[in-house]
């Protein structure tokens, strides 16, 4: 087998590996769905207006200042610190995913309302302030 043929085989191998092993047919609108929910106000989301009530209903029975579990989520400062420390991923998952341990631990169902989810998402997305 001559050298040129070996080169061809090697380059062809690299070509197939790089081209077809990572070939996806993803659609952004489906994979990363839009936050918009009909009739839901996500334009003016603040901690005091929406988020405080939401955290109080799901988290602060245990996660309060001086309470059994950390972090405390009963005030804006500590809720903000926790949210940004995980880029919002963890708080959002814990509060919306029924399989996560924390809502189950407290025997509280995860948020199922799309509007509440969208508002939480928006709050986290805009800096959790």
């Amino acid at each position, binding site marked *: 087998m001559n050298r040129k043929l070996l080169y061809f085989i090697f380059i062809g191998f690299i070509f197939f590996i790089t081209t077809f092993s990572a070939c996806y047919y993803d659609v952004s609108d489906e994979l990363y769905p839009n936050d918009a929910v009909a009739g839901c106000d996500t334009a003016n989301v603040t901690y005091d207006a929406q988020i405080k009530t939401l955290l109080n209903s799901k988290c602060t029975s245990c996660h309060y200042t001086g309470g059994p579990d950390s972090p405390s989520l009963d005030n804006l400062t500590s809720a903000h610190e926790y949210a940004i420390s995980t880029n*919002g991923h963890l708080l959002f998952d814990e509060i919306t995913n029924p399989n996560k341990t924390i809502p189950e631990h407290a025997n509280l169902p995860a948020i199922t309302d799309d509007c509440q989810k969208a508002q939480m998402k928006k709050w986290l*997305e805009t800096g959790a302030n």
Partner: protein
Amino acid sequence: MKKMKRYLLTSFLIIFITSISYAQQETTEYTKMTFYANRIINGHSVDLTPHGKLDFKIGHRMGRVDQLDNFFGIDQATSRIALEYGATEWCNIGVGRNTTEKLVDGFIKIKFLKQSKGKRRMPITVTGLSAMGLNTLPDPSVNTLINDYYFTNRITYAHQILIARRFGDLLSLQLSPTLIHRNLVQTKDDINDVFALGVGGRLKLSHKIDLTSEWYYVFPNQVYSQYNGTDVVNSFSLGIDIYTGKHTFQLHITNSTTMAEKGFITETTERWDKGQIHIGFNLLRFFTIANY
């Protein structure tokens, strides 16, 4: 006797001419430099960086010429810096980095057929290109605070078969059937695999200067998403190549600012008929790494 001499002389001439033409058929003459550079303007040409040479390339596209407050676009610029190496006589590899999307790209380019005459006659040069681009910025429409932005969604591919012919010294023409694969598209209407056809050419103006042109036609019903709020249009560029021996300087005007294939073929939004064009240049400089 005189008749005999004339007969012998004629026979000798016939044998001599025949032997010369036969000798010519024994060798193959390959066409060199179908284009001055391994880019026509934005897209690749059939030509390769010579074996053992490293091609350092800087591409620059200014802002729009209709923006007077930006001094005809010169205040703004996008650029691409690249290194391309002639790994063999028939294979190039290269990497580049673009300011647009902070895209890092790499490619393999292989020459399959060489235009030639003589013993082995081949009317065209055929080169294959396979390129991959990695967008190091996330898609701005994806909320990365909540969603994990998958690594594979950053990747695009470009595959081209470049077919060109040099018609004497004066003219070269190239066809570039192209497939762009985008791992992530915006909407369900958009097609991940985009087919396009590039047409490019070179017209010799003087010993060191060529006029070049390049047009990429994207076949309809493939790209629906808007970029910067504007529909995608075909990329068209016009330029001159100036060859100075060690440098090739390509100066052009184009409606595309991105120099990676997926950018100028599937994301060009500016229009020539509205004066939305850009001045740009490519500067190529060869360095000898190994002598072959």
